[in-house]
């Protein structure tokens, strides 16, 4: 069936669109971030025509990235404001924890914070570029400890896709022998940058305490590939990267897909819902053209939904029709359920007098961590010594970084005034280290998102309502994180600058790790999951989910590499299904 042969009567008669677009495309991809852009790249490379719908505006990192601008060039020296939650220079457009026209509400004990941006490339423009692989245990957690859910794919299924994704994206790091931290194939990884003094300082204490410290894996090139340059060790990755060294889809996947001539990008297209036929399959996508406020419906025989986990759930839940009263692809009732984030500790900043006045050198590095501490507590867990079931990683940052407001905590540690104050600041600049833990939580019936029965967005669509309650195991893990940090700080003679909170309060608000996943999980059973192992909806074989919504669990590892690896794998499957005439 050709695209234009989709009969208009497949759309409910009460939904006659204002604008019905019957463009020449094979697939509509909703979202341009890690999953959506990877999918578009793979599909276009396979010879398929793709229409990408992005709610945000066009974004050009080459022209718009403030690479060398200093804090002194920015209003308020770049400090965060309600307009820019993460600071002036972060590559975030019309977003942050508030998007004016699209509110969200709370229905649980603890408020969830939802970070979004409205720009081509989505959150890949400002992510931390952390790209650890999930390991064998991460895909089969339930088989190991009986908790949560297994993934319908194993590490062995995913290994080659990780290799291919890392090769395409460009990842620095090093292979290790650590349990559940599998290696990349030879030659895949870029060389990691040399560790810095403050990192080696922490490492020495961690090793004595039995904690592994290894080179971080990050999607930053340390050798040039294709048209992208290697990192030049000078600028903050969170601002975006005009030279393409720090991976974002706007300097890679999207331009590559555009060059095929088969990708059409429609920006400022706020998708509201899918239009379903009587069997529940999508036949089109409804969106608001934000440039003129007009409603549009675009017809498509295949839809890839990759709007980010929570927005994907909202679109599915809002795609209600006579035949699908609970929303699209939701016969299981699992859409919006199983919302996960990585429980994240309060940022703990400590001052280490031993580092005062040390010899100066270029300590800026690759714009983020060179070393970090992955979870290495599997043996302790096996011995029953821990009161939480899964693990956490912790990261640390410090040293002589770009001076910003507060001087990374130095301005909080000083006393007095006059010449001694001025001297103390210079002595201590480089003596501060900040620690953050990020852990794994289990899916919980207390953590989910649904539609608010009253609150609506600017276009009349129900807002997403979050429900959250930390589990006792999350709080136990937070306490363990805190004790670990205490041991390291104490061993190195440090003093805490931050006032450490206790128990649940030691965790930051859910959502603030910005690793939210799980709202439309994959699985082997259509009664318990939304999609199969290929991200293909059980209820609608022409609907694929390609973002973090499909994660059955959220290991204590940053999710974006796995989102991209799954999108690569599943888009290849999708392309083969289309070419075989099965879609």
């Amino acid at each position, binding site marked *: 069936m050709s695209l234009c042969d989709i009969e208009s009567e497949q759309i409910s008669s009460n939904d006659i669109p204002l604008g019905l677009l019957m463009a020449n495309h094979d697939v509509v991809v909703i979202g341009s971030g890690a999953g959506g852009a990877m999918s578009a790249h793979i599909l276009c490379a396979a010879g398929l025509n793709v229409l990408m719908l992005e709610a945000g*505006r066009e974004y050009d990192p080459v*022209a*718009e*990235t403030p690479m*060398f*601008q*200093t804090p*002194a*060039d*920015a*209003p*308020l020296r770049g400090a965060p*404001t*309600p*307009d*820019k939650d993460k600071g002036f220079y972060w590559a975030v457009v*019309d*977003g942050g924890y508030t998007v*004016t026209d699209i509110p969200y509400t709370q229905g649980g004990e603890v408020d969830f914070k939802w970070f979004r941006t409205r720009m081509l490339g989505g959150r890949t423009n400002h992510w931390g570029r952390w790209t650890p692989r999930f390991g064998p245990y991460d895909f089969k957690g339930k088989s190991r400890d009986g908790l949560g859910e297994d993934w319908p794919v194993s590490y062995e299924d995913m290994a080659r896709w990780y290799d291919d994704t890392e090769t395409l994206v460009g990842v620095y790091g090093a292979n290790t022998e650590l349990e559940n931290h599998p290696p990349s194939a030879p030659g895949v990884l870029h060389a990691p*940058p040399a*560790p810095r*003094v403050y990192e*080696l*300082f922490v*490492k*020495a204490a961690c090793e*004595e305490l039995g904690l592994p*410290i290894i080179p971080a894996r990050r999607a930053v090139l340390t050798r040039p590939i294709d048209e992208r340059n290697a*990192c*030049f060790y*000078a*600028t903050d990755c969170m*601002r975006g990267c005009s030279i393409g060294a720090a991976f974002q889809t706007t300097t890679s996947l999207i331009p590559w897909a555009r060059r095929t001539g088969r990708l059409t990008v429609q920006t400022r297209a706020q998708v509201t819902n899918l239009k379903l036929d009587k069997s529940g399959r999508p036949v089109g996508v409804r969106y608001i053209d934000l440039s003129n406020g007009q409603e549009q419906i675009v017809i498509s025989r295949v839809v890839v939904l990759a709007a980010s986990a929570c927005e994907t759930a909202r679109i599915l839940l809002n795609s209600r029709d006579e035949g699908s009263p609970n929303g699209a692809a939701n016969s299981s009732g699992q859409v919006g359920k199983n919302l996960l984030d990585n429980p994240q500790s309060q940022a703990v900043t400590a001052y280490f007098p*031993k*580092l005062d006045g*040390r*010899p*100066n*050198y*270029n*300590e*800026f*590095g690759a714009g983020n961590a060179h*070393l970090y501490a992955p979870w290495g507590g599997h043996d302790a867990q096996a011995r029953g010594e821990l009161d939480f079931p899964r693990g956490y990683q912790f990261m640390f940052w410090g040293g*002589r970084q770009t*001076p*910003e*407001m507060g*001087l990374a905590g*130095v*301005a*909080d540690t*000083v*006393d007095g*005034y*006059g010449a001694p*104050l*001025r001297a103390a600041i*210079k002595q201590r*600049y480089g003596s501060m280290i900040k620690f953050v833990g990020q852990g794994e939580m289990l899916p919980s019936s207390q953590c989910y998102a649904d539609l608010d029965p009253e609150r609506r967005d600017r276009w009349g669509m129900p807002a997403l309502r979050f429900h959250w309650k930390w589990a006792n195991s999350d709080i136990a893990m937070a306490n363990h994180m805190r004790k670990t940090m205490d041991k390291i700080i104490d061993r190195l003679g440090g003093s805490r600058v931050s006032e450490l909170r206790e128990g649940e309060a030691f965790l930051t608000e859910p959502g603030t790790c910005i690793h939210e996943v799980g709202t439309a999980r994959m699985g082997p059973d259509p009664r318990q999951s939304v999609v199969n192992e290929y991200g293909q909806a059980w209820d609608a074989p022409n609907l694929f989910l390609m973002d973090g919504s499909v994660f059955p669990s959220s290991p204590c590892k940053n999710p974006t590499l796995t989102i991209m690896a799954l999108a690569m794998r599943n888009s290849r499957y999708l392309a083969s299904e289309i070419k075989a005439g099965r879609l």
Partner: protein
Amino acid sequence: MTAFYLPMIDRRTSFRWVATAMAATLGYGSASFASQEPGDARPVSGTGYGTDPNLVEPKVTWSLTMSDRQRLLLATLADTLLPPEPGQAKPSAVGIADFIDEWVSAPYPEQARDRALVFSFLEWLDKQALVLDGKTFIETSLINRKKVLDMVAYADRVLPSDSDAASKFHRVRWLVVSGYFTSPQGVEELRFIGNEAITEYPGPTDEAFSHLDNILSGLGLTRGSV
């Protein structure tokens, strides 16, 4: 009074709030200026920079509001807090009062809280100085300025009656320290190395490694290998 605070306007900032800054200088040396009190700021006006500002050519979208006297008082305070060694800059010479004026004039909640705090602390400074010798903080001697700051600057010496002022001082010092050491001169004084493209990251120098090994040795630790 002949002392005045000259706004520091470089080519990057000149386009953004030059009009208000220059207007603020007009009153220096005038009779009316001497009678101004610290609280004589203009109301906050303007809007935030929005959720999609130009990041490559940043602009401040609000007017400066501090009175001439407040700016001079802040500059005097900042120079007392961070007096320069030979070859170093005074905070007032790198535009510290301009920056804090920009900060407390911003239409954002955190800055609004600081606005009230800073203005209140400036008033407190003058009141304490007046008690000492009948002169304001600007006009009094350096010795007396230090006597005033000694009341609030050292955490373990603050009298309970001065704890509120000390709390405010802590934040004002934070703003002054941050403002100075994020200025180009302050960054240079910190000897920050970065923001310049290099082809390979060299890592620590031999001297830095040697120093690290010494401090680890003192802690009974070793560097190990990566």
